[in-house]
């Protein structure tokens, strides 16, 4: 493998039902930074059906070039046609770096692409950087349930692949005046191979799912909140602050909160402007999902709770008293 032939930072721009996913825009923001450090280009791989009219928004988000594969086989995600499309792009264009969102789609696709192309894949990186001297691509990820960080290299294989969880990287402010190239790319499929898995149906859950990773303000509750009634107090505060309610794993396991609102290693990664941790002790798995928040307020009865180690403002006290009082205070301030 001649490493010098490989260049540019590629992003898999995931879409569902024709809608570009937020994680794709976040990855384009990071890819822009990496490509600028290398003096290379950002290329978005955009697979789907009747999607070309949206390619410009990927350029506005940071891409220099968008490869559009418009094909009915790519309308809804399936492992084989997507793996094959990306493999053909890798063989033809030789990317140096390939970033994929760590969604249920990306974490199915990434390993299959890495094995077909015999290259390395770093899972769920939280930090991606180009080293100043060697211009080496360094991927840092949590290991051992978030207890340890490891920086991974992929020295002699290309592309250097990484998945990144939604909410970890920051998207750029869209710039509609940015110029880029939109190129159609035709993939050749082996019909026998791509038809081995059939979609019987795709079901969207009826419940309204709020994407907590997009919220600017989160009022988050843990074991100390205790019950649905306790969470009602948090919801009232969140409403007053214009934010959303999220939860620790304990309250999801207890059936009090929905899993879509869970913050942490097995839940979502969030970095809001304000994270109010109420009755959350701060297990390392929880901290892994929220410690990048801009400003953290913690309210907990136990003054030794580890959450106070990451909080910018810690209050040792009873959230059941403080939260309603704070809500009332904010209400009177607005009058």
């Amino acid at each position, binding site marked *: 493998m001649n490493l010098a032939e490989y260049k540019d930072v590629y992003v898999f721009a995931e879409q569902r039902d024709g809608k570009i996913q937020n994680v794709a825009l976040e990855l384009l923001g990071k890819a822009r930074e990496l490509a600028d450090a290398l003096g290379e280009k950002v290329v978005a791989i955009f697979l789907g059906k009747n999607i070309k009219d949206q390619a410009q928004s990927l350029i506005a988000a940071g891409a220099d070039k968008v490869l559009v594969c418009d094909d009915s086989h790519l309308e809804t995600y399936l*492992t*084989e046609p997507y*793996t094959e499309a990306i493999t053909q792009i890798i063989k033809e264009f030789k990317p140096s770096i390939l970033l994929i969102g760590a969604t*249920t789609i990306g*974490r199915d696709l990434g*390993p*299959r692409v*890495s*094995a*077909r192309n015999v*290259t*390395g*894949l770093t*899972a*769920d990186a939280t930090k991606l950087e180009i080293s100043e001297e060697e211009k080496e691509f360094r991927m840092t990820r*949590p*290991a*051992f*349930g978030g*207890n*340890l*960080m490891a*920086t*991974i290299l*992929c020295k*002699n*294989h290309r592309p250097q692949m990484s998945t990144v969880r939604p909410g970890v990287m920051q998207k750029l402010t869209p710039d509609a005046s940015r110029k880029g190239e939109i190129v159609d790319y035709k993939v050749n499929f082996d019909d026998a191979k791509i038809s*081995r*898995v059939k*979609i*019987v*149906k*795709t*079901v*969207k859950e009826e419940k309204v*799912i709020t994407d907590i990773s997009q919220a600017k*303000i989160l009022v988050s509750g843990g074991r100390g909140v205790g019950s649905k009634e306790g969470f009602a107090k948090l919801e009232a505060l969140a409403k007053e*602050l214009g934010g959303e309610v999220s939860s620790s794993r304990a309250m999801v396991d207890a059936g009090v909160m929905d899993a*879509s609102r869970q913050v942490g*290693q097995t839940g979502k990664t969030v970095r809001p*402007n*304000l994270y109010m941790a109420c009755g959350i002790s701060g297990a*390392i798995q929880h901290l892994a999902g929220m*410690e990048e928040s*801009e*400003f953290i*307020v913690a*309210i907990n009865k136990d003054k030794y709770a580890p959450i106070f*180690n*990451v*909080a*910018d*403002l*810690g*209050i*040792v006290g*009873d959230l059941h008293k*403080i939260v309603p*009082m704070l809500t009332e*205070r904010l209400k009177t301030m607005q009058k």
Partner: protein
Amino acid sequence: MKIVVCIKQVPDTTEVKINPQTGTLIREGVPSIMNPDDKGGLEFALQLKDKYGAHVTVITMGLPQAEAILREALAMGVDRAILLTDRKLGGADTLATSSAIAGALRTMDFDLIITGRQAIDGDTAQVGPQIAEHLDLPQVSYMEDLQYDEATKTFTIRKQMEDGYQILQMQAPCVVTALASAVQPRYMTVSGIVTAYDKEVEVWGADRINVPEDRIGKAGSPTSVFKSFPKQLKPAGETFEVSPEEAVELIVNKLKEKHII
């Protein structure tokens, strides 16, 4: 029907602690367990055994002490257990691991391969799909339910998605990766535990799998760890033990100062 379940022995990461002086992992006293998603996958296999009389094999790659989880699987009711262990397989990343396991699977008969979605020590979710790729088999990951039609040898699988689920179908032979949360694994039975220790655990070395040496172990790993370090937590802010009234004032003032309200 023949099923092979790939399982892994992992440290119980919820018990892992960091030595604050040295910043290194304290691994002594941390129990080793069968990875939860793998155990979920094993339960799916045993349910197919109950229903259709499937023959279930478990395989693990690891150190000799990984025999413990194979004995546990035997006590839960599997028919055959294989320990793939060799110094030549050490230091493997996910790609080299999947190459070695796929090599072992290639020598076996199967209709279905089940792996866990991911292991709690690495959380990569890569080895299952990579095994499927090496064997050129179709795959469905994030499986939360599985039905089988004997006449057509077709599996109908419910796959978890962030915003709902998908129902997918594929024919044997194929690969699925299972979610621990989807099933409650059965307990070992007393008679199972007794007989598990009479059963043979087959020990395979790298010579049993026909995989080139540059595809296994450290040599076959495209990725390497440049450095590892304990997570740097940002310095703690101030913590106050005050009355609820004062607490509210403190919070309001800080939020104003930060232009959040």
